C-alpha cells in the first residue's frame, strides 16, 4: 500500500476528508458463502452502506441556484472551450462541484464564503453581483485573484486569491476526471494490454536506455501463457 504524504495531492492521491469505514451489516447469513446482494444501480462496486451514503448525499441540497450559477461562470473562465475540447461546464464540472462540497464538507464554508466574497467585491466595484457583470468586469476581478501574492501587494485580495485557488483546483480535478478531460490530456490507461517496455521512439527522446543484462531477466511476453516450470535451482525452464 501507499502511504501518502499531503504533497502527493498535488497530482495524485486522495488525502483530505475524515474517513469512516462502512462495512458491516451486509445481508449475509452465518455459515453460507452467499455474495453480497446489490442493486443494478450499483455501478462502481459499492457496499450497501456506501450506496446509502451516495443516495443521502445526492438528495441533500447545499449550494443555492445563484451560487451554482456563479460556479458555472467561474468554471468556464478557468477552463473555457478550445477548438479541440469542451469547456468545464460541457464536462459538467459545476455538477461535480455541487456534489463534492456535500461529500467533503470541509469544502463547504470556503466555497460559500468565497462566492459571497466575490459578490461583495463585484458590488464594491460595479454595484452588482458577479454574474451580472460584463465579461470585462468579471475578468478585471479575476485578474486580481488568479495569481498568488507572496509579497502581499494586494492585501485586500488575499481571501479572493484563496477562494480562486479552491475553484481552480476543483475545476481541474472535476474536468480531468471525465472522458472529455482524459481525451484532452491524452490519458492512455485502464484497459487490458501487455506491457513490453517503453516504445523505442519514446526512449530515443530520453537519456536513458534498457541494458541488455536487465532485459535478459524480464518477461518474454510471447511465452506468458505457457505454464511456468523451474529446475531445482529456480531457473525458469518455460
Amino acid at each position, binding site marked *: 500500500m501507499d502511504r501518502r504524504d499531503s504533497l502527493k495531492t498535488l497530482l495524485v492521491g486522495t488525502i483530505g476528508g475524515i474517513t469512516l469505514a462502512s462495512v458491516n451489516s451486509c445481508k449475509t447469513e452465518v455459515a453460507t458463502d452467499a455474495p453480497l446482494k446489490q442493486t443494478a444501480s*450499483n455501478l462502481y462496486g459499492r457496499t450497501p452502506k456506501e450506496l446509502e451514503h451516495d443516495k443521502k448525499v445526492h438528495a441533500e441540497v447545499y449550494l443555492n441556484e445563484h451560487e451554482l450559477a456563479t460556479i458555472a461562470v467561474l468554471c468556464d473562465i478557468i477552463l473555457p472551450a478550445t477548438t479541440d475540447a469542451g469547456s468545464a461546464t460541457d464536462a459538467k464540472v459545476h455538477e461535480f462541484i455541487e456534489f463534492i462540497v456535500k461529500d467533503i464538507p470541509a469544502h463547504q464554508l470556503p466555497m460559500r464564503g468565497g462566492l459571497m466574497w466575490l459578490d461583495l467585491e463585484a458590488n464594491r466595484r460595479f454595484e452588482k453581483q458577479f454574474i451580472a457583470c460584463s465579461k470585462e468586469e468579471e475578468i478585471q476581478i479575476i485578474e486580481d485573484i488568479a495569481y498568488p501574492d507572496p509579497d502581499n501587494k494586494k492585501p485586500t485580495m488575499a481571501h479572493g486569491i484563496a477562494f480562486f485557488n479552491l475553484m481552480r483546483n476543483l475545476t481541474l480535478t472535476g474536468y480531468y476526471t471525465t472522458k472529455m478531460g482524459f481525451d484532452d490530456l491524452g490519458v492512455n490507461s485502464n484497459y487490458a494490454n501487455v506491457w513490453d517496455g517503453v516504445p523505442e521512439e519514446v526512449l530515443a527522446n530520453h537519456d536513458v536506455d534498457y541494458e541488455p543484462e536487465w532485459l535478459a531477466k524480464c518477461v518474454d511476453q510471447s511465452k506468458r501463457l505457457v505454464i511456468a516450470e523451474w529446475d531445482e535451482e529456480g531457473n525458469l525452464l518455460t
Partner: protein
Amino acid sequence: MPTKIYDAIIVGSGAGGGMATKILSEAGMKVALVEAGPYFDPKDPATMTQMKWPWESPRRGANTNRAFGDYDMSWGDWEVEGEPYTQEKGTNFMWWRSRMLGGRTNHWGRISLRFGPDDFKHKDIDGLGENWPISYEEIKPYYDRLDKMVGVFGSKENRYNDPDGFFLPPPKPRLHELYYIKGARKAGVDVIPSRLSILTKKLNNDRGVCYYCRQCNRSCNVYGDFSSSSVFIIPAVNGGQVDLYVNSMVRTVTTDENGKATGVSFINKEDRKEYKLKAHSVVLGASACSTARILLNSKSKQHPNGLGNSSDLVGRYLHDSTGGGRMAFIPALMDRKTNYNEDGVGGLHVYSPWWLDNKKLDFPRGYHIEVWGGMGMPSYGVGFNVTEFNKLIGGEVGGYGDKLRKDVRRYYGAIMGMEGRGESIALKDNRCELDPMVVDQFGIPVLKFNYKWSNHERYQARHMQDTFEEIIHAMGGMPLGDKPTEEQDWGLLKPGQIIHEVGTTRMGNDPKTSVTNKYCQLHDADNVFIVDAGPFVSQADKNCTWTIMALAMRTSEYVVKQYKQRNI
C-alpha cells in the same frame, strides 16, 4: 447452529488464515473458517472496482468512504464503524482492519520479499531485539514451495540477505523507473527488479495472467495477483471440507478445565447474538493485534491473565515498519508523449533492497526503497495546485484559461516519488492491551495502543531523506516540498501507518520470554496455533506477507501432523 466438533477452527481469512484453510482442508481435516467481515470474491461484478473510470464515482474516487479512495478494495481502514480502539495518552498507533473475506490481501501492495539469513539472527549482529528460534535454512523450503504455489515475479540476484526464489520473470521498467535506476546507481544505491506476487506468466490453470492495468489494490477479477480470497479460500470452500462463517466476530477462545481450547465464541453480526463453535484445535489468523485481543479477552480460571499470556507478553513487542517518502519532479519527463499505455503491474517494477553496512551508520537495521510515478489514471486530486510546479522552471504560478490545460499536460507523468520501508526494533513497552473501560458495539473490550518510536527509527528516517535527495539530484530531478526536519522526526510516519504490524505473540524457546514455540503453538495451550504476524520476533526490512504465509504453511503442516498423530 451446528453441534459438530470440527478438527480445527480457523479465525480470520487473510494471508495466514487462508494458507491454513488450504493446508488443513486439503489434508482432510474438517474446518470451520470464521471471518468478521462479509463474503468477497474479486470477480463478483457487484462489488468489483477494477477497470472502473473515475467518472463512474460521483466523487471521482476521493477517499470519503475508503481511506485509500473509492476503488481501493478494503472494506474497513483505520476506522471501522462501531469497532473503536484507544490510545495511551501522548501516543498514536494507527490500526488498519479490512472486514471482508481475504482481509487485507485483497488490496495489499503484493511486495513479496523473503527474509534473509541475517533477519532471523539480527541480535547476533547488533545486540538489539531478540533472535528468532528458527533460521533461514529452516524456512527456505516453505518459501520455495510458496513461490511455486502462489506465484511471485523477481530475478536471480545472488544477494546474501535477499535470497532468490522460484521467480516468474519481472516486467520491464517504466520510463521513470529507468531514470530511477540511473540516479540510484549514481548515488551508490543498488537497484534490482521488484518482487511482487503478480502473475506475469501462467502459474496454473486456475488463475489468469496479469493484463497490466496497475490496479492490484482493487483486487484482480482474473485472479492474476495473490489475494487470499481468490487463491486460497474460495477453492478450499469449493473442496467441501470447509464451513465458512462470515460476518462472525470472534470474542474468545473457549477452554476446558485442563486449559486446552475447546472452540470459539463469536458474535453473529446479523442477529447480534453470541454463538459457540467446538473444535479439537484453534488456529488464530485474525491479524497480529486482533489475535492478541482475542487471547487477552479469553480469560479463564486456567488462564487468568488471558489465554497464552502467562508470560505477560501477549500484545507486547508490537512493531510496524518504518516509513518515509519524498516526491520529485523530473524535468526530462515534462511534456512527455502519452501515446502508449504504461500502466504496468499494480506497483513498482524496480526497487532498492538495503545496500549498506550498519557498522558505518548511526542507526541499526535497514530499509528498502519503493518507487512510484508515471502516467497513471487521474482521479480526485489531479490538477490540484498544478501551477505551483511552474515555480520550479521559472514559469507563472496561478492563472486561468487555456494555459491551465498546458500546465496539466506538462506535468502529467513528470512527478515520481520514493518510499522507504525499514526495520524498527521491537520494544517490550510498545504494546496493545485491553482498554479497561471501552467495549465495541459487540460488547467486546477493545484494544488500547501504546507505541513510541525510538531514535533507532528516527535516525533511519533521517538517512532515508538524505538518500532520497541524493538520488533525486542524481536523476536530474528536483525534490518537491521541504525536507522534513528533526522536529518532524525527519518525516517518519506514525506507527501502524505502514500496515505491517507484527510481534504481539512472539515465538521463542523459553515460555517466560515468548508466547508461542517455534511452530507458532501456544506454550500455554498446545492445541492453539497462530498463523498471522503475531509470532514474528523481528520485522526485517522486507514487508511481512511472504513470511506470514511461509510460516503459516509450516505451522499448518505441523497442525496436520499433530492431528494425524492424534495429539490434538
